[in-house]
Each structure stands twice: as structure tokens, then as C-alpha cells.
């Protein structure tokens, strides 16, 4: 292959891949599924990778949505956002509303203690990435 042909081929490759790349980003933006398989809970104590699917699937703990999520209106079945943008804001100073840290700790630790499933209280390192 001549040098000119090789150069033309690389120009072509660069242009085609640039278009494919731009289209992939533009046409297929990352979407969060209605039931996320896992959720990364970011916080200052160390991230927690919560396995949502294991908690909801029949092969896992088989929990229903409203076992953990709850709503203002009892007839409402669609879960609402929990932490940031939802009711339990991370830095909430509202005395009537638990902040995100307390709400999640109560929910997770409470349930795990009730069913005596590890991780239990004071086993921070089993959830948080330290």
C-alpha cells in the first residue's frame, strides 16, 4: 500500500469513528432503568454499593417496593425519591424529618437486625467502602 493510500485510510478511520462515537453519545445517553440493579450511595463515610436487585428479586430477599420505600399518601404505590431531591435530604435540619444518613441507617440496619442478616450494627466496613 502506498503512503498516500495509508494516510487516506487513517483519515477515513478517524472520521468514521468520530461520527460513530458522537452518535453513540448523542443517541444512546445513559438511562437509569425504572428498577436499577444496583445503586451507588455516595456519602462522606465511604460509598455504599446497594444491591437493589438482590433485595427485590424472588431469588434474593423478595421485598416489595413499599417494604422500604414509602410515600406521603398511603394509596400511592409509586415509590418516591429517598435522599437527595427527595424527602430525606443529606443536610436536612428539619426536626420532623430524618436526614438521609439517619433514614438509611435506620432502614438498612433495622431490617438487617430484625432478620439477623449480616451486615449488622457497627459492621460499617461491610457496607461502606473505607
Amino acid at each position, binding site marked *: 500500500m502506498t503512503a498516500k493510500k495509508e*494516510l487516506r485510510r487513517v*483519515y477515513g478511520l478517524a472520521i468514521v469513528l468520530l461520527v460513530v462515537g458522537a452518535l453513540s453519545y448523542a443517541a444512546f445517553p*445513559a438511562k437509569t432503568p425504572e428498577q436499577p440493579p444496583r445503586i451507588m450511595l455516595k456519602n462522606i463515610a465511604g460509598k455504599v454499593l446497594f444491591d437493589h436487585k438482590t433485595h427485590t428479586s424472588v431469588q434474593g430477599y423478595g421485598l416489595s417496593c413499599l417494604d422500604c420505600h414509602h410515600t406521603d399518601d398511603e394509596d400511592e404505590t409509586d415509590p418516591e425519591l429517598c435522599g437527595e431531591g427527595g424527602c430525606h435530604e443529606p443536610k436536612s435540619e428539619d426536626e420532623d424529618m430524618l436526614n438521609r444518613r439517619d433514614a438509611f441507617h435506620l432502614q438498612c440496619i433495622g431490617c438487617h437486625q430484625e432478620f439477623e442478616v449480616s451486615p449488622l450494627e457497627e459492621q460499617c466496613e461491610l457496607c461502606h467502602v473505607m
Partner: protein
Amino acid sequence: MLEQKKFIVSHAPFLHNGSSIAKRNYNIILAALPAVVFGLFQYGMPAVGVVSLSVSTAIIWELLINRITKSKISIADGNAALIGLLLGMLLPPVSPWWLVITGTFIAIIVGKQIFGGIGGNPFHPTLVALAMLMLSWKDFLDFDEHLVNYDFDFIAVYPLGALKHFGVAAIESFHAGGLLIGKQTGGTGATFGLGLIAGGIYLMARRIIRWEISISFLGGVLICALVFNLADATRFAGPSFHLFTGYTLVGAFFLATEDSSSPVNFIPMLLYGATGGILTVLIRNVGAYIDGVVFAILIINILNPLLDKIRPEALGRVA
């Protein structure tokens, strides 16, 4: 004895065996394709976007710097495309576009062209970029965080992350067979072990990469991981886990073997590879980082000129 012919040089015209830098680079790209294609099928369109953008922008940065410095257009040698492809293989499959473009900028401009272009770079350009991205935007290199929306038929936590944060108990469900056939999360082109090994064997058989470096790198990983594992199996994972997770295989066959930043003599190549493998496991087991391959190879890149001082004795003698 004086009659003995050791090296015969004849006059021109010479026969060229047809090899070229471009052929070498395109062969390396070809060898990487099985692992890349597997990754693209595993992660879908987001991974296609990352890899495509990485290759194309690496070529474009190279072209731009060629124009700015008024030097010969060097994109046809395939080196920029290879650097871009390797970066795309190592990044999380859902990396944002600006991270990819910044990465290829660092790789081509800071990692390669500043040192005078191909053959002048003391470090692997892709690893310079990845190390800078890792240090600058740690969270964007967190595979667990960026792959939360993928649902696989295997445990979708990053194996090395699970080991680092939760210990050996958290990786009991990973087996060598599953890891080899890509049942693990990671970089788009870094999870399919069999594909990477096949590519590595192809490159070693074609003598495009030196087997001494790859095999000693893997040997270093194996022996170091084995020593740790034998010392305390409750804290340290076994050698097969370290060999088939993270960037180990892509490091052994595609990163440590880069021409410009690796030695050429036999003993130096063995020392270079083995040091890389040992450092990889040391960083993983006792260091701060989840995967040690990136920094281990950058460190052996620094050692390269020193190691190449160990050279065979020159023929003949000064009277």
C-alpha cells in the same frame, strides 16, 4: 580461529522483509480486537462510543500536533490509533466524552509528542493518560459506580474493588474459568481473558512483542500473589485471581511490551517484566490503589534505561 566468519555484510541492494511500524501497530490492534469486540457486545452502545471516540480523537490530536509543529504527518503509522484503542479498552465503558478526549490529549501530546513522537516516549503514553485521569477524577474510574445500571448473569462488582474493600470473603464466587471468559466487570477491553491471551500469543508468535517481557510479567504476578496467598490466605487472594482480573493480562501483552519504553536485552527484559508483575501485586495487596498495573508499568518504564545497561559483552577487544 581467525578464519571464523561471524557476521557477513554484503553490499546493496538489500532485500527488505516487508515489516514496518505501521504493520506492527495494525497487528497489535488486530490482536486486541477479540477482547474489544467482546467488551462492545457486553456493554453495548456506551462502550462503542468510548472506544470510537478514543481512537478517533487520538488520531486527531496527533494530526493537530503534526500540523502545529510542522512535522511529517505521522498518523498513518497506526501508533496514535493504537494508543487511543488501548485507552478505550482500559476506561470504564460508560465514561463521559470529555474524559475520553482529555485522556487522548494527555496520551498523545503529554505522553508521546512532547518527547519527540514515536520511539521517544519514556512511558507508555496510554498509561500516562490513565494515571493522570485516575489521580484527577478518581470517581470516574470507579467501575462499580459507573456500571450500576448493567444487569449481568454474574456478580457485577469489580473483582479487585471487592477484594480491596471487603477482603477475600467477598471474592469467593469468582472462579478462574469465569474470569477468563469475561464474567467480570472492568474496562471494555480488559475483561475477556481468553481474547487477550489469544492476542498475546499471536503477537509473541509474530515476534511483534517480546515473550520475555509478557511471560516474566505474568510470572512476577503469579509468584508474588502465591507468596502472599501462602502467607495468609484469609487476607490475600490467590494467583489465578490476580492473573485474570483488572488490567493484568492487557498489561502483560499490550502495555508493558511497548517498544519505546521497554528494554531490548534478554536479562533486562526478564527483570523488567518480573518487577512489573511483583509491583502489581504489591500495590494491590499492600498499596493504596485497587489495581496496581498502571503504576507498576509506569515504574518499570522508569527502570527501563537503567536495566538496559545490563548488556552483552561487545565482540572483539580494544588493542
